[in-house]
């Protein structure tokens, strides 16, 4: 018999196993790497480790996806991406992973998450953050996205932000 699992609950990211040295390293570099010719040696000196150990630990944090990205973190607004919209989609549950992966490959999509519906008030289960130079550019990007991922038939809503009341960066231990 051909049995296919059409839908399964995705596993949530598990808390990583980190020792005290990892914790100290994570805390030390959370605000940024030293801008010196030998940043890892500098970090090693600070933590009383050797450089090779620091490099291996960062590599491991990266491989385990504790570090999601490593490099420059840009401010969209300062780079001319002045508009963004939270765009939400009502996607059949068995298609959401595939469509999420399709949407996530576009440069102007900076967040792409599946979240629970809250019926009857909120039928949308796929959330994307779409950036653009201005509102029209954002809307054009959404249209392009819908077309390229064959989403024309799917119900979606574009929620521009009208006011920002609070923004702080996440703080880690």
């Amino acid at each position, binding site marked *: 018999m051909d049995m296919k699992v059409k839908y399964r609950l995705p596993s949530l990211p598990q808390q990583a196993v*980190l020792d005290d040295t990892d914790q100290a390293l994570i805390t030390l570099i959370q605000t940024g790497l030293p*801008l010196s010719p030998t940043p890892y040696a500098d970090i090693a000196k600070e933590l009383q480790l050797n450089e090779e150990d620091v490099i291996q630990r960062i590599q491991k944090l990266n491989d385990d996806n504790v570090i999601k990205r490593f490099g420059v*973190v*840009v401010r969209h607004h300062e780079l001319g991406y002045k508009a963004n919209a939270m765009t939400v989609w009502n996607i059949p549950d068995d298609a959401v992973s595939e469509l999420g992966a399709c949407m*996530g490959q576009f*440069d102007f999509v*900076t967040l792409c998450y599946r979240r629970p519906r809250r019926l009857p008030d909120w039928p949308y289960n796929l959330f994307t953050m779409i950036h653009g130079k201005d509102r029209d550019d954002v809307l054009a990007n959404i249209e392009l996205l819908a077309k390229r991922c064959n989403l024309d038939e799917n119900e979606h809503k574009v929620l521009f932000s009208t006011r920002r009341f609070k923004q702080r960066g996440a703080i*880690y231990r």
Partner: protein
Amino acid sequence: MDALDRKIINLLQTGFPLTEAPFLDVAVQLGVEEKELLKRLSDLLENKTLSRFGPMYDAQKLGGAFSLVAVRVPEDKYEIVTAIVNSFPEVAHNYKRDHDLNMWYVLATDSPEKIDEVNAKIEKKSGLKVYNMPKLEEYYIGLNLPV
């Protein structure tokens, strides 16, 4: 920001080498002096074009939790509800959006249990129902915007 700044940002959005002299490696790739690269990065951080140079962590892997929460706030109560919500240090950001569910805030806490605790307190203080929408699955995050 000039062409070299753009080249630096576009290249370093894709990653950074884990080598003994990583800036030198990047400088060679860009065809500039290491000193020039370090100066440019320092300036881009100074003038806030870049928010950070280094790692971006997955908070959930560090034991923390995030959730996106929506509230339907009557216009005449918007200011007071904003004050209530923003009084919680766990609220990382809070946007007004053009929808019936018009308040959208993000909670960042050091444990998943705290998310429910804070939401319950906000419901009690505001008298409004909150719609908690935690992330169930994350797809590739393309933070690489060509500049």
